[in-house]
């Protein structure tokens, strides 16, 4: 039973972790893009 629990917790932490990483990447990029856009249109 513990093995079952272990397996499923591993599966979901990894998937959730990947989604979190993706979200973080997207956020950082969004921020950068916004900054650059502002900078590019400023002048």
């Amino acid at each position, binding site marked *: 039973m513990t093995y079952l629990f272990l397996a499923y917790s591993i599966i979901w932490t990894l998937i959730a972790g990947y989604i979190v990483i993706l979200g973080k990447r*997207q956020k950082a990029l969004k921020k950068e893009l916004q900054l650059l856009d502002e900078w590019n249109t400023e002048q």
Partner: protein
Amino acid sequence: MKQKSGFIDTAMFYLLIPMVFAALYFVFIWSPVEKFMGAPQKIFYFHVSCAWVAFLAFFTVGYYSVRTLIKPNIKFHIHAGISAEIGVLFTTITLLTGMIWGKSSWNTWWTWEPRLATTLILWFIYVAYLFVRRMEGSWEKIAKLSAVFGIIGVINVPIVFMAIRWWNTKLHPVVFGDGKNQDGGGIEPPMLFTLLFCIFTITLLYAYLMRKGIEIEKMRHAVKKAKNKAINRLAG
């Protein structure tokens, strides 16, 4: 166009959540407990689904690699890269769950069973592929080199499987069809349904992650372009 793809993403997301819970319900509550292996057998559903997606992702890499070589296009290059990344994720999951299953049913963390060993080598090829993509240079060059490596890698997978199968075919329980006399090897209809449902869910998850990843990668390129523009502006 942009709105439409955003809509698909949202729809997929809201479809995925209930499906994941439904899959978990089928796995843990609805489907019967296997009489020989007991509760740990329930690892099997997601283990198989993840393995399926891992191989699917790898062949997707191969497919887009071939297309990149035929006609270089940054879209194919990005698709192949994201697929490889998700492939690494699911291969890792397959390996870990496979090990746990092995521990619970054969009391050993690792066996050189063909499918598991092939998955391990697949993992190494994936990682090598990602290393190739990390090389410096214009994307055209990297697209070409990584596509070439991707194709060689895909050719290799069936051979690896065959070699390891010949090398050692002892331990894997044959769940489907060709087990001896079908006893202990058969699969009950609810189990089959649960398995298929899980495979479908994970495949959908793969598609969702692919879309998400591609979107992010496109953003990265937009950032790069904007950066170049800014630099050009600075340079005068």
